[in-house]
Each structure stands twice: as C-alpha cells, then as structure tokens.
C-alpha cells in the first residue's frame, strides 16, 4: 500500500472511530440521573413553576385549532 493510502485510511479511522468512541464515552459519562432535581436546568424549570407556561400554550392551542 502507498503511504498516501495508509495515511488516508488511518485518518478516516481516527476521525470516525475516534468520534464514535469519544461520543460513546461522553454519553456514558453524562448519563442523565433519574432524579429530575439533579439537573441544573430542570431545577430552574421547577422554580419557574407552571404559571409561566400559560400564555404561550393558549396561543399555540388557538393557533392549532383554527
């Protein structure tokens, strides 16, 4: 095999397989906890409460019912 072919093969493997390995490990590391309160964003969501949802949902419901 030529040097160029070997280089391209290794580059492709590095990027694609490396990307796969990295994303699998990342996903395992950032596995979501079952407890909702552990998530920073979801915690804030709980603090915001349901009352903030009202206006948007009424608008969306009206829009869809037309």
């Amino acid at each position, binding site marked *: 095999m030529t040097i160029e072919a070997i280089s391209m*093969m290794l580059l492709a493997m590095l990027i694609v397989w490396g990307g796969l390995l990295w*994303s*699998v490990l990342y996903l395992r590391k950032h596995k*979501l906890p079952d407890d909702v309160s552990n998530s*920073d964003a979801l915690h804030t969501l709980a603090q915001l409460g349901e009352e*903030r949802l009202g206006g*948007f*949902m009424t608008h969306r419901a009206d829009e*869809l019912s037309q």
Partner: protein
Amino acid sequence: MIRRAAQVAARETWSTQLGFLVAAIGSAIGLGNIWRFPGVAYANGGGAFLIPYLVALLTAGIPFLIFDYALGHRFQGSAPTVFRRIGGWFESLGWFQVAVSFVIMTYYAVVVAWSVSYIFFSAQGAWGSDPVSFFTKDYLQVSAPSFSLNVVSAVLFPLLAVWVIVLVFLGLGIQRGLERANKIFIPLLVVIFLVMVVRTLFLPGATDGINAFFTPNWAALLRPDVWVAAYSQIFYSLSVGFGIMITYASYLPRRVNIGPTALVAAFANSSFEIVAGIGVFSTLGFMAHEAGVGVQDIEGITGVSLSFMTFPKIISMMPGGHVFGILFFLSLTIAGITSLMSLIQVVSSAFQDKFGFSATRSALILGLVAMFCSVLFFSTTNGLNALDVVDNWINSVGILGIALLSVLYVTYGKRMLRELRLHINFHSSIRFGKWWIFVTGLLTPAILLYILLATVWSIITTGYGGYPHNFILMFGWGCVVIAFLLTAIFTLLPWYKKRAPQLVGYQPWESLTTLEALEKEGKL
C-alpha cells in the same frame, strides 16, 4: 397536568435510551452502507473523497439529524402530527414524508427478499459460472422495460416471508417489537460483518483493493460533483429528512440526552461505512488478483450489480466461498430488515396518530397494502427495471425535495430554529450554539437545493439508464405523482375524533417561555 399525564400515557416510549440508539443506528445502517458507500467513494476520488464526506457529516449530516430529533422530541408525534402541531395544514409535509417512506419500503422489501434467496443460493453455489445471467435471467427473469403482471414465484415467496417477519415485530409495538428486534439484529450484524471483513483481509490481493480504495485523487476535491456526491451520501445514509428520525425521536421520554445520542448514531453509521469499504475493496482486490487485472478494471462495484452479480462471482472463486456468501447475504438481509422496519414505522406511526389504530391493526392494514404493491410492481419480470427507476426518482426528487421543503418551512415559514435549538440544549449535555442555526437553516438547504436542481436537470436533459421515455414517465415521475396524491388524500382525511383534542391541547415538554427564561439565565 392531568392532560399532560394522559398525553404521555397515550404514547409508548423506548424502554431505555440504548433502545432508541440501537434502533436509530439500525435504521441508518442499511443496504446503502454496504453497497453504495464503497463504490461512491472509489468513483469520487478514493481516499480524497473522505474529506468532503467528513465535512458533509459534520456540517450537514449531524446538524440535520439533530433537527429531526428536535422536531420529533419536542412535538411528540409521527411526521404528520409534528407538522400539524407546528402549522395546521402543513401536516401535508409530514404526509409527503410518509408517502416517500411508503414507496421506498415497497421496493426495499424486495431487495431484502433477494438477499434471503441468495443466502440459500450461496449454500448451493446456484449461480454456477455465470452469476450475471443467473441473476437476471434464471432468478428474476427480467423482461424488457414495460408494465408486467408476470409474478416471479422465486421472488414472491421470500418477499412474503420478509413482510410477515417485519410486520410481526412492528405489530408488537415499540418496546416489545421494534426495540427488541434491533437489540438482537444490530449486534448480530456487527459481529457477522466484522468476521467477514477480517476474512477478506487475508485474501490474496486484499491490500491492492484497500490501496485502490484509499489512494487519494486530490484533483477530485476541485470537482463540485464530488462534493455533491459526499453530501448526497450523508443524507441518504443517515436516513434524515423523510420522517424516520422524527418518528423515532417522538418515542423518546422527556429525560434524554439528545446531542451525544445523535453523535453516537452518526459516527456509528460512518464507522460501519468505512468498515464496509475496507471489506468490499479487499474482496474486489482478491477478484482482480485472481483475474490478473487491476482493481480499476472491475465493473459493477455499486448497488445491485455489486451484491448480486460481482460478489457471487467472487464467492465462486474464494476458498470457503459458500460460508462467506451466506455471511454476506445474511448481513445484507439484517441491515435491510432493520432499515425496512424503520420505514414502515414512519407510516404505521402516522396511521396510529391520525386514525387511532393500534400498533397491531396498523401493521396489519399497512402490511397488506404494502405487500400488495411490492408484489404487483417489484416481484414481476419487470421488477428490476421498475426498482431501478423508482429508487432513483424517490431518492433524487422525493427525499431531497421533502427534506428541503421541511427545513425551509420550519426555518423561514415558522422561524422556529431558535426554539428547536433551545429545546435541544435543554435536553442535551452538549450545547449547540448559533452556528447550528446557520448550518441547518442556510447551509443545508442551499446544498439540498443545489443537489436537487442538478439532479432534476440531469434527469431531464440526459434521461436515466437508457430507459424508454414512457417507462420513465410511468415509474419515475409516476411514483412522485402518487406520493403527491397520497399526501393530498391523507391530509384531507379527518383526524380520529378521540385524537383530535390532543392536537389542540398538546403541550411541549417545556414551553418556549420557559426555555427563553433559562437562556436569559445563561443555562441554555
């Protein structure tokens, strides 16, 4: 809150994130990974093609995959339901995606049926010394291009078997059927394929094949058609833009990590393609070695020709070729079945949403109709010709067209990309910046438009495959017209009365107001 609880209870979800991931990978890894990518890469610059391919993956494939996931997860429904929730009568966009999936599945099942037949043919060495003649004359009994009602029984029975197997799994629902099937089939496919590829590496001439595959032709990078081929390959390969990923993501529970999940699915698909390229070209290298010619002199290195004409020839030459043949066609069968299930799920899910069918009833009704179309158009003596033309048209015009319209509508019609980006960031440990809006809303549609126009122009000016004009009209443009008709009919049909209130009372997991508040606090 009660309404939300009822809404959630009504829609089945994947039992685990892994279940969704495996199904998404199973959908992406299909026949195209094995028989399309290696040949396309070789014809478009070899090793150099990998550069536009990886650029396309990162700038269009993954962003569009995220776009589909976001639509499905935020609007929690099949493609028509999602677009109905976004914009009323624009549910027609979803129905066109469903129609495209329906057309594809009718012929995709036939190719899987051929693969099933070839598992047995491999064991017997049935093609003898002339695999081309065996495939076209003895097996498919190919006639001149025209409409035919002469059903080929050798295709009919495996085709019926494929439909029954697939529909049984889908009739069992998401967790017991689709998820379980993918959890069995995908690891099996990976193991079988790896065994096969490792075997090919030890064949004489394998190095020459790999060398031919990876040797870069740098001049190819200056050709626009090479970049178009790379972006096309990524779109077709990742199953984006025609409802599959929207449907799959709609079965995700609220708590999911969308970003990394999309990356795993995309990189797993590309990893499989690279492995397939190595395996296919090792085998072609062996063939060239045995024939005393160069790899560049071998013909039939993509698609149906590669799998059912060239590979059988190689299998006959190879020591232990029968076993290799069985593994190869088993791989094709498994890859095809998992992708076929995802296509049917797009249609089945839409029927369940709009007409209130159960998974079983939907699979049964849909199965009978699709099976009938499969048999009528693709298991006859005209099947190969019809399949070739329909496949080209539905891919070139159908998939590209609907992917473009969908992204344009969401981006410019509803100006919704920001909402989707916030939704993704809320449900992802990887943050997607404004660059995602740029590549999804501007770069991707521009590329899709260019590819679509170039393809349609080429079809109009130069025709396709030397087929007669009437045949092209009947099966090429005809299937696009049928897709439009199906879209119109199913959009106009009324929603099942017990489901209709859900459309009006639907609530996203988090409202835009909430997401915007979180963004202001710097948390998204």
